[in-house]
């Protein structure tokens, strides 16, 4: 096909290109979207589950942020609801203070698995049994 506008001969395998009479487009730089902001996206798989942070989108307003988030993050997995939150509205503790989260390395006292009782009960029962044997 010979392009009407540019006169370029395209030997394209693409049927869409073959159909188009004028195919050559001049380069128009995209406008900088100055008003756009970043929104953090939270995805909820099913009703009742947590909304989980999955990424961010760049959008002019919350309504379009939701549209972009749906395309980007709810295409594959099941989704029951999305949240978008302007990134600037998120308050961050900052990695420079990361050490404030480190405490004693052994925290088994605050885990359920840190309390082992069965062996105590067994040995108590064992002792009881010996007692009654006598």
């Amino acid at each position, binding site marked *: 096909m010979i392009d009407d506008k540019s006169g*370029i001969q*395209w030997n*394209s*395998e*693409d*049927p*869409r*290109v073959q159909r*188009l009479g004028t*195919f*050559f*487009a*001049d*380069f*128009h*730089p*995209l*406008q*900088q*979207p100055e*008003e756009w902001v970043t929104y953090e996206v939270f995805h909820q798989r099913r009703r009742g589950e947590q909304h989980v942070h*999955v*990424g*961010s*989108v*760049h959008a*002019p307003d919350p309504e*379009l942020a939701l549209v*972009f988030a749906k*395309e*980007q993050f709810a*295409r*594959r997995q099941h989704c029951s609801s999305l949240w978008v939150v302007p990134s600037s509205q998120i308050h961050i503790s*900052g*990695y420079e203070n990361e050490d404030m989260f480190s405490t004693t390395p052994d925290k088994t006292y605050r885990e359920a698995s840190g309390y082992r009782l069965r062996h105590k009960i067994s040995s108590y029962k064992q002792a009881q049994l010996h007692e009654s044997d006598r």
Partner: protein
Amino acid sequence: MYGGGYVFSDPEHQIPPDDPEKLAEFEARIDRGEKIEPQDWMPYEYRRQLIRLIEQHAHSEIMGALPEGAWITRAPGFKRKLALIAKVQDEVGHAQLLYSAAETLGKSRADMVNDLLSGKSKYSNVFNYPAKTWADVAVIGFLIDAAAIVNQVANSKGSYGPYCRALERICYEESFHLKQGYDAFVALATGTKSQRAMLQDAVNRWYRPIIHFFGPPDQESKHSKQLMRWKVKMASNDDMRNQFLDSYVPKVLELDITFPDPELRKDPQTGRWQFGDPDWAEFYRVINGDGPCNAERLAVRRLAEAQGRWIRQAIMNPQQSVTIPFA
């Protein structure tokens, strides 16, 4: 899909010196296996190379959708058509994720898209070759996506947090691309005589671009060492290429489809694959704009931009009234 191993760079670029104390701290963090986040200090060159890498990866996803996208209307059967639409949509989604990741480093999406449309930016060479038959779509979906997965899985273990997170999501989706490509490939390989001939022809044409996919041999890549130290690059071009050949050559050969290279074989001593001269001069010709489809791909991309311009303008200026063009 597709962050080729080769990252085009501008040799004249002047690199300003970094604060040595901060640099040492930064490198120690990387050595400990910690991720770097956008708000962290990073060396000038780390930021510059990452922008280049992620941006070229994003462009490759966008341009990679074109050869396959052209086959959606001609996909054989409803299921394959659905799968191809979903795959192409995923690839464009990958570009969106990657543009977001690159934006965290300070280059705006509009600047990146403009650099693609003006022809300034590079993208993976493989998409500058034509998809002549349906078998090409099978080869792309199977082997090019497989090559991309090798590359992306390696990069997902890199040091820059936003890029790694984008890649984890991408890799999850790629597994479907690979499977549907393999399915189409096997369907042709186990089909009629002419289906097999069509597939063999496509493999013959794609063999060289696939060898090129991971970039030139290690001794030709200039920045590799520092980029690997900083975990921007996670494996050398030759190592990734070898890993790909190791996994996928047997899968092709077992279907009695061959590669057009009598020298292709695995050295039993070293475990490395050897292949005939893949003509690296051609690789450089294509990356510099002179491939069989470079001009057409760019023109299609510009056309897409031109056709979507009115909606972008409407979004930018909600008060303005915009007339929808017919064509």
